[in-house]
């Protein structure tokens, strides 16, 4: 197999790779906000349960979580594994990333000086207004570097979908590598991820810059 055919075959999976990436972000970013909110709840039970769930999601391999979400329903309830594996893959990724995002949000929110809340309080802002007008915009700026980190990691983590044989770029590459007994597909995959992350860096850098009008 020529290098060119290899590249062509693997790029057929790029759409799926991108689908995992984009859908995970779309679901995990808001879901993380809800998880962070539960984690910071004044209700001890809610916050402790949430903390426990986060510790499981962060303390066990994403690969294991992928397998559990994809095949768990079959072993537990004998529900047949869905043919479109994108759904379980995105569910597993979104939940896992939401746990990380939640902790980033929490760190950002808790790092806000109490004076900002007090100034808003005295000016008569409601709790919702204080959060959405005063706190959140500042938190977003503070946590942007950590978010970029997660997004970059996510690009590479999409390769883990090969464990459930979802036909994304890396899975195809691995299959070619096996059939051709060649290491070349892995190098091609590496270049793909590197270019993908170059774009991510560019976009995230633009976003960070757009918020640098104050310090």
């Amino acid at each position: 197999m020529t290098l060119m055919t290899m590249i062509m075959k693997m790029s057929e999976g790029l759409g799926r790779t991108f689908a995992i990436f984009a859908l995970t972000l779309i679901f995990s970013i808001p879901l993380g906000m809800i998880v962070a909110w539960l984690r910071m709840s004044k209700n001890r039970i809610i916050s402790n349960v949430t903390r426990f769930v986060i510790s499981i999601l962060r303390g066990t391999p994403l690969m294991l979580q992928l397998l559990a979400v994809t095949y768990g329903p079959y072993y537990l309830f004998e529900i047949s594994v869905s043919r479109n594996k994108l759904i379980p893959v995105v569910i597993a990724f979104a939940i896992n990333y939401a746990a990380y995002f939640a902790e980033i949000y929490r760190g950002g929110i808790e790092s806000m000086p109490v004076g900002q809340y007090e100034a808003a309080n005295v000016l008569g802002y409601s709790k919702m207004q204080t959060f959405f007008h005063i706190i959140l915009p500042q938190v977003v700026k503070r946590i942007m570097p950590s978010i970029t980190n997660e997004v970059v990691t996510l690009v590479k983590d999409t390769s883990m979908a090969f464990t459930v044989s979802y036909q994304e770029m890396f899975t195809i590459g691995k299959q070619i590598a096996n059939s051709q007994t060649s290491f070349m597909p892995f190098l091609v995959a590496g270049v793909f991820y590197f270019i993908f992350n170059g774009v991510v860096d560019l976009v995230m850098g633009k976003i960070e810059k757009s918020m640098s009008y104050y310090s």
Partner: protein
Amino acid sequence: MNILKMENVRKVFDGTLDVLKGISLSVDAGEVVAIIGPSGSGKSTLLRCATLLTDMTEGELAYKGESIVTTVDGKAVYADKAALKKARGCFGLVFQNFNLFPHYSVLKNLIDAPINVLGIPKEEAIETAKVLLEKMGLADKIDAYPCQLSGGQQQRVAIARALAMKPDILFFDEPTSALDPELTGEILKVIRQLAEENMTMVIVTHEMIFARDVADRIVFMDGGVIVEEGPAQEVINNPKEERTQRFLNKYQQ
């Protein structure tokens, strides 16, 4: 008329630390009251209780005759949300470290609350903001961000932000303590100007000369109680209490 009336305010932190031991303070419309005293005397806590940032343990609080806190069986009971919201409209607070909103321009700092809290039309809020900035000598900083301003300028913006809400009474919590001496003057000048315009103010300060010149009445606090209270000139020039004398002597050295 009393704008602010506090009766027998007690604040106990963690059930043991007695910070305020029964303070009563009334402020009339147009009056300027300066609160002085050593660190830890409870001055700031008193201000925080008055501005509803800290819950008092016991006591009474009323703005313009409307009761906000009453005491039932030795425990402070706060009025409902609507009443608290209304009370918050009566006062403004200028913080020691400004607490401007860093992500907002100077103009946005001044108009965001009037628009979103008071429901004032945007054009009107902008007009008011411009007048206030002119008065503070900051007309050219309208589009600047707080981080581009000096401490003194930031504090003047903070005063303008509080005034934009058209409060009946303005509290100052050591407004010059975070500023170096050269910048202190510009803040004191602004407060003096407000006093001439008959703004009702309560100022916690360590600037004794300023307190004497600008305040109508001085309250000297120590150990959670009001030790001495009276006309500004009298308290500073001829303190009656031995504790007040000792405190003021330190400033004259």
